[in-house]
């Protein structure tokens, strides 16, 4: 009994292993989105004019604004990790909150965009959409699936970052134990990279 009391288990951390695991997950996500990008390219190649017309109906300003929001959220995320590594956990927590706020703002804009389209009767299998040309139906189908899956990733990212913020405030994540925050950051940057490609492919077809 006394022996058990005095036993302090040595904490084992595999920093590189944790990061490698995160990267493997990120790479599998790239392949998931990659499949959709292949589908997109094939349909766009077959229906260039319809894709152009359908793309013009999207709100370019809102899309550009969302690009800027997400890029800025990546900046606050990157500095948040650096700040924690430098021991400035208050600054880190503040920037993490900013990242979460930018993520929510992105989702809000996306929500406005989607509801406007749905109000106009443009949603998968809607009677209005089905009267359109085949390529336009395909474009909006891809638009809802790809931005929807991306939006889901943003939502999950916001959730994960909120948990990290909680840990940071509870000092479960610290200057010497930052892998959780860093790996969540990697996920957040992945979501940013996917949007970097979605933006010109959906909003800027000429």
């Amino acid at each position, binding site marked *: 009994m006394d022996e058990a009391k005095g036993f302090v288990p040595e904490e084992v951390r595999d920093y*590189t292993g944790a990061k*490698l695991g995160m*990267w*493997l997950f990120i*790479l599998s996500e*790239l*392949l998931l989105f*990659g499949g959709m*990008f*292949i589908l997109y*390219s*094939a349909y766009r*190649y*077959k229906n260039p004019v319809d894709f152009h017309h359908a793309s013009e109906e999207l709100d*370019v300003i809102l899309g*550009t604004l969302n*690009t*800027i929001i997400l*890029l*800025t959220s*990546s*900046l606050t*995320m*990157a*500095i948040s990790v*650096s*700040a924690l590594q430098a021991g400035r956990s208050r600054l880190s927590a503040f920037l993490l909150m900013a990242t979460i706020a930018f993520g929510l703002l992105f989702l809000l804009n996306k929500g406005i965009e989607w509801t406007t389209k749905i109000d106009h009767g443009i949603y998968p299998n809607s009677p209005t959409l089905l009267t359109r040309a085949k390529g336009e139906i395909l474009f909006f189908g891809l638009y809802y699936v790809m931005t929807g899956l991306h939006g889901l990733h943003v939502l999950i990212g916001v959730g994960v970052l909120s948990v990290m913020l909680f840990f940071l405030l509870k000092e479960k994540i610290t200057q010497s134990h930052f892998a959780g925050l860093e790996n969540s*950051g*990697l996920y957040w*940057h992945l979501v*940013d*990279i996917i949007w*970097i*490609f979605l*933006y*010109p*492919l959906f909003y*800027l077809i*000429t």
Partner: protein
Amino acid sequence: MKYRAYILVWAGLIILTGVTFSLAGFHLGGWAVLIALSIAGTKSGLVLNYFMHLKSEKELIFKIAIPLVLAVLLVFISLTFSDVVFR
């Protein structure tokens, strides 16, 4: 200072977004997609190398695994696309 480098990368990303946005106003025909995708690729490279620290990773596995998966993705895309084009 590391923060400064991050802010410079961010500024670069915003500028490239502006370039993509403005180029869409010109009618570049078939080149438009290629240019837009090249810019998106450059932006991803900036995010991967600086925000995701790929540039400063010392472990060999990171230097191999990531380009390998990207290469696989590129092969998938080019094979599928050539099938669509030349069918």
